[in-house]
Structure formats: C-alpha cells, structure tokens
C-alpha cells in the first residue's frame, strides 16, 4: 500500500509540473497584458495592473470585427464539415466494405501533409474563384481541413450504435433523414458535441490559411494577433493584450466544456 501511495504522489506531482509548464506561457501572457510597456520588458511578478494596453489595442484596431469573423468562420466551417461528414460516416459505419478501413486511413493521411506544400495552388485557385479575403473561402478551406478528423470521430461514434436500432427504425418507417434526426443524432449527441467543440477550437486557432488567404475583410483573430508583430518592433504589453483578447473566448469555452471534450476524445480510444 505504501508503495502505491508514494507512486500516486509522485505521479500527481509530475502531473502538476506538466500542467504548470503548459500553463506558464498563458499565465505570463496574461500578466504581461496588464503591465505597461516598460514593465513588460522586465520579467517581474509584482506590478501594478493597468488597462492601458487594452485601451490602446481597442483604439488601434477594431477587435469586434476580427472576433465576429472568427466566430462566423469557426462555426460555419464546423457546420459545413458535419454536413459532409455525417453521410460519409453513416455509410462507413453501417455499410462497411473491405475498402472502408483503407479509405479512412487515406483520409487521415491527408492531414499529414504540411499545408505549406499546397499554399501556392490553393492561393491561385482562391484567387481565380474570387474567394480570397472572404469568409466563404475560409469556411470552405477549414471545413476541408477538418473533414478527415470529423469523419473519423463521427465514424467511431456511429460504430457504437447497434445496427439493430437503425433496422428497428427502418421497420418503423424511417427514411435516411428521419434516421439521422430521430435516432442517430440523439444517440451520438455527446460524441458529436465534443467533435464539434474540437473542430471549433481547431478552426479558431488556425493561423496558416487565415494569414495567407485574408487581408482586410475576412481576417479572423489570428491575423489580429499577428498584426501586432510590426516592423516597429514587438510591443510586448500590447501584443499580450491582443493575444489575450483573441484567446480568451476559446479558453472560456474550453474550460466550460472540458468534461465533454475529454470524454469525447477518450471514448473512442477505450473501445
């Protein structure tokens, strides 16, 4: 018993250390946001908090526009992603063929390619299609980017549902849409919700395509942060304030839904 208690204690300590290491940058950024530009250059913990950096950030750029863009793009791309993923996952989960597994792996493999590899073709395509610097364009590319993850996770949740229940629904007279609406979606809801949360977070934080494909109109919060690394030099306090404003909404969302996120991500793994 003693050994087990000691082991638990050590593991707990390691866990706390890991958490501190991961949390530290965010913590430091938060306190830096409340310092003046001068204080920001000194690594000190004790200071008098001030809101002047925030005031300057709001005066300099329109936070609300960027935030609204982020919201539209994250939620929009997640919605589009699900519209495409649910029929695919349905087919693969309930009518699998020999090729199903290899198709899933192939889909996942597209995520392994670095985005920069296709930057030029995508840019040119977007330009000819008039999708540059548009919310539609980003929604499209984010949906495609997240599609493999969405299909994979939805597939594992659909696999948990016994086929007999869908057959019972068929006997009761349900067509495809009724099956999804009345049987599949309610049953897979926890899994679908955590997948949606994950996709929203991924889209919100995505910084490659948003920087390269937008400029004035459709720029989300990631561009907002990047705009603070200016040729004038790095203004740490303002940069931290801007970053905090960009990250805060998604941090709060993640905090509130952490239980669903964890259970959703690990549910498939245990089975």
């Amino acid at each position, binding site marked *: 018993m003693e050994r087990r208690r000691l082991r638990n204690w050590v593991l707990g300590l390691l866990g706390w250390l890991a958490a501190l290491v991961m949390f530290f940058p965010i913590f430091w950024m938060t306190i830096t946001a409340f310092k003046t530009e001068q204080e920001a250059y000194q690594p000190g913990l004790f200071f008098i908090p001030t809101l002047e950096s925030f005031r300057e950030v709001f005066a300099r750029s329109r936070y609300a526009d960027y935030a609204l863009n982020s919201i539209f793009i994250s939620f929009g791309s997640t919605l589009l992603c699900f519209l495409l993923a649910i029929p695919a996952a349905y087919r693969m989960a309930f009518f699998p063929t020999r090729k199903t597994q290899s198709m899933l792996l192939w889909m996942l493999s597209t995520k392994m390619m670095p985005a920069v590899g296709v930057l030029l073709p995508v840019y040119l395509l977007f330009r000819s299609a008039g999708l540059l610097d548009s919310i539609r364009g980003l929604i499209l590319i984010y949906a495609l980017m997240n599609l493999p993850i969405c299909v994979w996770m939805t597939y594992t949740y659909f696999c948990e549902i016994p086929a007999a*229940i869908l*057959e*019972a629904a*068929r006997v*009761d*007279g349900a067509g495809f849409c009724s099956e999804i609406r*009345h049987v599949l979606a309610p049953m897979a809801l926890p899994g679908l919700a955590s997948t949606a949360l994950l996709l929203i977070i991924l889209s919100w934080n995505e910084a490659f395509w948003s920087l390269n494909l937008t400029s004035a109109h459709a720029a989300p919060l990631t561009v907002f942060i990047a705009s603070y690394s200016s040729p004038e030099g790095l203004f740490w306090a303002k940069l931290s304030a801007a970053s905090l404003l960009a990250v805060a909404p998604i941090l709060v969302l993640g905090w509130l839904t952490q239980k669903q996120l964890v259970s959703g991500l690990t549910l498939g793994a245990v089975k």
Partner: protein
Amino acid sequence: MTAAAPIPTPPAAAAADPPLADGSVRLRNLSKTYADDRGRPVCHAVQGINLEIQDGELLVLVGPSGCGKSTTLRLIAGLESISGGTIEIGGRVVNQAEPKDRGIAMVFQNYALYPHMTVFDNLAFGLKLAKKEKAFIREAVLRAATTLGLEGLLERKPQALSGGQRQRVALGRALVRNPKVFLFDEPLSNLDAKMRVQMRAEIARLHSSLKTTMIYVTHDQVEAMTMGDRICVMRDGVLMQVADPLTLYRRPQNLFVAGFIGSPPMSLLPGRVESRDGRLAFVGGGGDGALTVPLTGRLEQLARGRIGRKIVFGLRPEHLNVAGGEATHAPASCLIEMAEPMGAESILYLKAGGSSLIGRVPGERLYKKGEKLTMHIHLEKAHLFDAESENAITET
C-alpha cells in the same frame, strides 16, 4: 459434404392461384447469396426455399447457428435484398417493398429500443413517422401498453427497465403497428431461464388472442417445440423438414432433424445390416463385441433390401429402459459412462459394444459411473436411416 436432399419443390403454381388470406406468407424459391466486393459469391445463406405459411399460424424457424434462419426472416422483413425467388405477403409480391410497406413488425434479439426515448415514445415512434394524429397515437399506444402490462412504465427510459420489461416494450412496439405478420428474431435469447419461460407463455397467449401470423426464429429446439404450430428445421440455408412438433419428433425425415429435435438427443448409431442365422440384425461399429440388435417386425421390413449396407440406427432415450423383457424388446448390456440425476428421472450415458447410447431411467435409484447393466431397446419405436443419403428409411 452430402447434405440430405432438400424438401422436393411443389409443382409449379397454376396460372390462377386461389387468393391468399391477409396474413399468409409464401416463399417461392427464395435464395440469398452474399458476394464479395468483386461480385463473386462467397456465402449461400439461403438456397431455394419454398414455404407456405397459413394466415394466423405460428411458424418456427429453428436450426443451428449459421443455418440461414435469421437471414430468411430478414428477407421476409425487407432488411436484406433478395438474390432470387419471390416473397408474397397476403398474396402480394413484396420483393421490392420497404419494410414499412410490407405489413410486418419485427421484434429483435437485443430489443433494439431507442435509448433516448421514453417507453411511450418508443411505442409511438412508428405512428409519429406515419404522421397520425396525436389522439390516435395515444389511444393505440395505451391499448398496446395495457395488453402487455406496461401502463406504469410509459414515462421511463429503457435503461430503467429490466430485461423482461424491455422485451415487452419491443413487443408493444410491434403490436402498435397492427401488422399482418409478426417477425421474431430470437427474442428470448438474452433473458434468464425463468423470464424466458414467462415470456414464452406471454407470446403464446398473444398469438392465441390476436390470431395473427407469427414467424419465430430460434436456435432453441425446446422453444420451437413448445411454441410452434409448425416447425421448419433448417441447415445450411436449406429446409430439412417442415411439420408440426409431434410429427417432427416421432417421424424425423432425416438424420439431422432426428438428432436436432429432442432433448436429450436421439442416439444415432452407425452400423450395417447383416444376416445372422437367417435373420436380419443391425450390427454397430466397434468390431468384435459390437452391439447387435435383431431387426424384427416393422424394422425387418425396412431393412430387407439393405443387407450389407450401411445404416444408422436411431433410438430416443425414453425407448431405452431398464424394465423390459417383452418380445418387442431387445436386450443390450451397457456400461454407464455418466449419470445425470434429474430428480424424477435420471439420464444415463451408456456404452454398448462400441456404440454410445442415451437412456432414461426412473430417478429413485442412483446410478453410478462404471456400473454395468442390461438395458432394453424398444424395437418398434426405433428409427432407421440410410447412412449415405441421411434420409429416414420409411415404408413407402
């Protein structure tokens, strides 16, 4: 690889068939073959089945795992596509019809209740999809719930119900659809023994009050014998025999049915017909000291044309007793390999010569392994089967 010959197909239907009653089901040359991705046939699950089920009959499809009984049921339900043949329900060909348009309702082995809906919603789901009015739905659901004793459970969710209650909800869901044919896919397999007996009686009661056609699939031959008006024994996608329980028990048409129906099973002894001192006898396997049974009376007639041929001698346990001595009994000295005292009687697993036999004896005396005793074979109740074709040898 020689399976018994399937039931001979009935003569081709005349151009004008008499109109079938509402709940009758007719399968004509029904077959289902599973193919792999390239279209090559991989599994002949159901092969050319011909079956006529009368309106109001409770027909049981029974057989070992993989015999095609569930596949046949799912073909009738419309959950699988047909590879060949036709299915008629109520006189109408339903090959292409959706399950909801066939007038059927199905009760699944794992109940398949909707876990996120209350019992009421589970029962009402089909009617809601059919866009019936609320009052109609409420009335139908309450009626079904009262029939099955579910009135107090309507607001509960399936996870708050016991196995038996869940199965009743599954039954209720089928009842609410007011179908022409009920389809049961091993509904009692997941219940404990006591609940199984209770639900069996309830389904039988339902059948006698509703008088609707029911097709019941099970692998349990006890269930089949107690519930069915008629029983279809299946093996490897083929019908081995279709008859009422008693006929199946007393006049099995082939080795498979003989060995499948009846618990404990019929003793099936391979051997040959030989002529001993001018009389016919069955000689079992095992060389010297093999079991020799004189074939007299009816058995002599059956074996007459088969001297020297291989046959199988079949005997039900109740026809192998300790008491005996009449002219129609043949003695056999046996060694007890195992004894199972059941209380009122004991089941003895015996060895005679090289042949294994099962016998039933009164339960008052305790028999022990290793004991030797003389058992008596009731010759007039024995069965003879041809060893190659596996068919029963009958008078005709």
